[in-house]
């Protein structure tokens, strides 16, 4: 799973570079977004377990 996410991050960054952007600020935002997704997913799982 982590490989897929890493590949997505690297590919998005590559596209930014190809478009001529430096990509650093965008990369920081992408990392924040991916981390938030992981937390939300874990939070949803915890919620589902507690409901069951």
């Amino acid at each position, binding site marked *: 799973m982590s490989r897929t996410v*890493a*590949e997505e*991050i690297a590919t998005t960054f590559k596209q930014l570079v190809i478009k001529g952007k430096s990509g650093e600020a965008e990369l920081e935002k992408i990392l924040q977004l991916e981390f938030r997704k*992981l937390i939300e997913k*874990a*939070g949803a799982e*915890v919620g589902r377990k507690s409901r069951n």
Partner: protein
Amino acid sequence: MDANLEIRNIGFLKGNAVFSFRSAKLNVVEAPNRLGKSTIIKSLAAVLSLPCKTDPASNVAARLGISDSFGNTDPMINVGANSAFIELSVDGERKTCDLEIKRASNISPKGDERFLLTGILSEESEITHRLRDGSGDFGWVVASLSLADKYEKAIFVVEKELNETKLKLEEIEKRIVHLRQAKERLQHIGEEKDATTMKLENIEAKIAKLPSKSPELEKTWNTLQIQEREKRKRRDNLQGKIMSQKTGISTYKKRLNTLIAETEFSKRELQNAEKKLKEFPSKIEIDNWESEIRRVEVDEIPTIREERARAEGFLSFFESAISSLQGKRANIYEIKCPVCGKTVLKAAGEVRLHYEEIQHRLSALNSKIASLTMRKNELLNRKTQLEDEKARLEETKTSLRAQLSRKESELVREKRNFEALNKSLEPLLDEDEKLEKELMSIANELKSLSHQRAKLGAEERRLFEERGEKIQVLNSLQKEITRLQEELSDGSVERIGESFLPIEDLNRVYKDWSQTLQTTVDLLKEEASRQKREAAKRFNEKIKDLLWKLGFTDFEDVWLDEETYNLNILRKKGQRSQVPSSLSTSEKHALATLLQLAVKDAYMPENQFLVIDEVVLDFDRSRVDKIMSYLSELAKERDWFIIMTRLSDVEQLQVTYM
């Protein structure tokens, strides 16, 4: 296509100067020392490359004297002036640098720092500098001029996030160990409590079997024992309730703290927005700008336009004078100059001289009008930008104020709930304390009754002492159990954003994240290496091509190693390759020229400018001639502006086009 370079107060040149260059030509700038050759190089370098942020471009900028080691452009400004200006216009496109002492320079549009590494060949260029020092390490070429540089920066960002994640993971793992130890200790204490309770019950059974002295006493004794059991049971239940209430309060407290932090954050955001709004130029300042815009529009531009119209009139006068001179020479030999009103022009040459002077003046006036129009547009743009920014900030401020007001009401409500929850705990704690006291008093009463129930011997006294001790131990074990339960409840959950996560789940999330980041770093490193290898390959192809085109027959091959990025030189097939430090000074200069042309063609061919200081072409004449003819061909083929400065004995700086 023409390129006009207009400069004011740059380097040795005080005041204004304008230079014209032609594309598809080798533009040779000739002058004696201190007449502005270096100033032209500096001006072109500055307007095409600044601002520089990274090495080695910043080092080249410092060596060229276009900025100091802190990136300030003060070294470029003439020592007798406080500000300077550079403008390069090519085919209607303008690039400008506004420089002021001890102020950040205003460069529009921003240049590309790679130009310093590709488009300038002088004693200060990175390639010349490295080869002179005998260094064969050309890793900087592939790192700075390929996309690898961007990947390296991205790797730095991800590695920083990875390190922070690893630190957080370490902290979580320590907390998990601590919580596991607390759980084990809780279990151990629970077992100890059960064993102590059993022992207490045994002691009480033994005490109950003590011989009876009177039925009344026995009745009281039994009643007290029943009471004690009931109260203890009640107290156990009560402590369960207290524990669950405390857990609730602790969760609530965390929520309240988060809410307080969020409210504080919103307050700070609002203060920042208000501060930014205060820093905005006042209406008076904006009015001043507007009057300056009007002044430029209504006064300055029309005045210069009038002057231009006059100049155009003079020009047409001189044009007709010249044309008349061609036809009726004798009649027009004596004319009065319409500019000064005095001079009587007697020769065709003088008329032509006046004509050229007026033409030059007209071109200066046109530039001035263009520069004033630009200034007016800049002011208008800045005003619109500021007004937009102000409106956006006002909107943010309103939304923050609403957000803050919501948070504050929520905080008041939650504080009230928290206080109510705390208050509801108080009667439970009071009841617990009361029960404890009652139990102690029953225990004392039972103790005194038991003395009366039997004539106590040493064995009985020991039983009662033991009973007292066990009760004390039970009390302290209960306290420790409560403390550990609180610790476990506090530490086993963490709030991240909107989610409350059990610490084990959080640990899993951080482990996954750490693996993702590590894989991302590996992927970006692979891509950076690929970019570097490809850049080296491209560079090597260009070198090979140039070796042949420039007829560098004394070198069989020159190439960058695609793994180490070290420069290798092979003189003859079958021989060992050499490193740059083994070359002679003139060979180093020749190689620097070749490599600079290869770098320019490989990495920045889209930029039309190539600036060469002829000082570096310090090698045999036939080779210099070959390079000059190649440059002339290259300029035509690519439509480049190749500008070469040359030391000469001419009186004034002059540009010739080859």
